[in-house]
């Protein structure tokens, strides 16, 4: 990150700076405020004034046309700035959902993949059925089953503390469960294919030295296999950032939910989704940059990224 910043870094830095400032304000400096009531910290009035002035500027002809057009642009900026507080609140949940799902999903995916490659017949069959069911049905349907069908919220609501202060409400937990198990299935596939691409001689050599199969998998197979799974895994992370928007359909107030609600209030759907779109792009860009960093840091000299010999 030192030296000349790349274009990606220049684009992404403002997003995170803004989010951190906004979140600090909302949770630490002025906590307890309802999301819809939050007001932008940025000089909104000044921007709106500029827009109005531009609109009126110029009598007629080309200059007037240009300034009116510019006014439209500045007014869009004002609208975007005004909606930022809500979007920032939504972005928090989007990020929370994504990070929880990818990490918890990973914890489930590794045993699923290992069992699938190294387990006995019944275990392999079990792992296969689980992953195929989860990958074969729509994510939204899975979320609906959890939220509306099984009414998980009822059970989760019994847990003390949920919904209090900064702890998100039950819907968010249901969403995390849904995304976790779904992502686990996809991640298991990436890991499985990475493990299968590994040279069989690695485990054989480990066993020949006296390691048990499990120890061999833990010390020799997984460290290599997981590295080979990184490209697929980054893919999953990027997808998850976008699929997290499905949580809005089970009442989670994520980025998409906020965008939709601002849209339905103002009828300015195109504009608000454009702004939300910028958020998503910057989040995806951040994720890609992070994964690139991970890939370089975990690279082994002499070992490629695909496991081919």
């Amino acid at each position: 990150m030192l030296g000349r910043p790349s274009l990606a870094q220049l684009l992404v830095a403002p997003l995170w700076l803004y989010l951190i400032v906004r979140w600090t304000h909302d949770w630490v400096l002025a906590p307890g405020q309802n999301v819809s009531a939050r007001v932008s910290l940025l000089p909104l009035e000044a921007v709106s004034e500029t827009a109005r002035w531009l609109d009126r500027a110029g009598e007629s002809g080309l200059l007037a046309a240009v300034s009116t057009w510019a006014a439209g642009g500045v007014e869009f900026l004002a609208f975007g700035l005004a909606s930022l507080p809500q979007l920032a609140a939504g972005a928090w949940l989007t990020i929370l959902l994504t990070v929880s799902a990818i990490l918890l999903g990973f914890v489930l995916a590794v045993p699923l993949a290992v069992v699938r490659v190294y387990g006995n017949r019944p275990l392999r069959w079990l792992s296969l059925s689980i992953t195929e069911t989860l990958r074969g049905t729509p994510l939204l349907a899975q979320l609906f089953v959890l939220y509306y069908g099984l009414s998980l919220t009822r059970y989760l609501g019994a847990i003390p503390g949920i919904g209090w202060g900064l702890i998100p409400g039950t819907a968010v937990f249901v969403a995390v469960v849904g995304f976790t198990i779904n992502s686990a299935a996809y991640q298991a596939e990436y890991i499985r294919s990475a493990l299968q691409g590994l040279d069989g001689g690695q485990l054989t050599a480990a066993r020949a030295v006296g390691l048990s199969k499990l120890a061999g998998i833990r010390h020799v197979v997984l460290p290599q296999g997981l590295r080979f799974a990184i490209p697929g895994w980054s893919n999953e992370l990027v997808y998850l950032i976008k699929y997290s928007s499905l949580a809005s359909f089970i009442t989670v107030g994520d980025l998409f939910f906020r965008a939709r609600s601002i849209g339905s209030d103002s009828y300015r759907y195109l504009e608000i989704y454009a702004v939300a779109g910028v958020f998503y792009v910057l989040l995806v860009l951040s994720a890609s940059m992070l994964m690139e960093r991970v890939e370089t840091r975990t690279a082994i000299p002499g070992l490629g990224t695909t496991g081919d010999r």
Partner: protein
Amino acid sequence: MTGDGRGRAEMLRFENVSNSYGSEEVLDDVSLALAPQDVEVVIGPSGSGKSTLLRCVNRLTDIDAGEMRLDGQKLSGLDENELRRRVGMVFQQFNLFAHRTALGNVTLGPRVVRGLSREAARELGHEHLRRVGLADQADAYPGELSGGQQQRVGIARALAMGPELMLFDEPTSALDPELIGEVLSVMRELAGAGMTMLCATHEMGFAREVATSVTFLEEGRIVERGPPAQLFESPREERTREFLSRLDDPTAVDRGPGR
């Protein structure tokens, strides 16, 4: 003659060992015995079962008939992992742990299996790397080493577990010619230091100089077995003679009897 197993402690014994892969018989009624410090070289055409023979010793492959003993104990009665601590193996394709340095490769077994502390394992690792002439490559990754260096790390890795018996499965077959020598000299030194070794190899020079006994294996059966001088100079069996002559003149076309 070595390996007669009478009145001397035996390191390894095969007794009527057979092994099949599906319907195909890979080993057929193999019997042989090694005394401690013996160097047994197994030669034969590819597909003759040399690798399988070796893999039966450390139970990477299971036998279908017969009995095997290590130092008098039945192999079937030993715990697999326990057995593999006592028998080291060196592979044709090296099979080094690609994600670990040379030192890391050598120390993994002692750390995980024998529970050595980090420091003790490192010291042991350095010692064994020194022994194979790679003291300065401790921090290199397999991807950065030449074939000969990788194989020597493989040997060090096997030795670090303190085995009683070393198995060499065509250790130089995947090496460029100019790298073979460095591996063979490590093996020669090992034999000189008194390690019991069972080697499948095509390196006849090594067999002539280092082996205490040479076995010719063809289609899973021992065709002939004897001291290298006898087997190479005056083989008893016709098939042995044929195989050896093919090695001497590899491009000769078989023109049938009377050539």
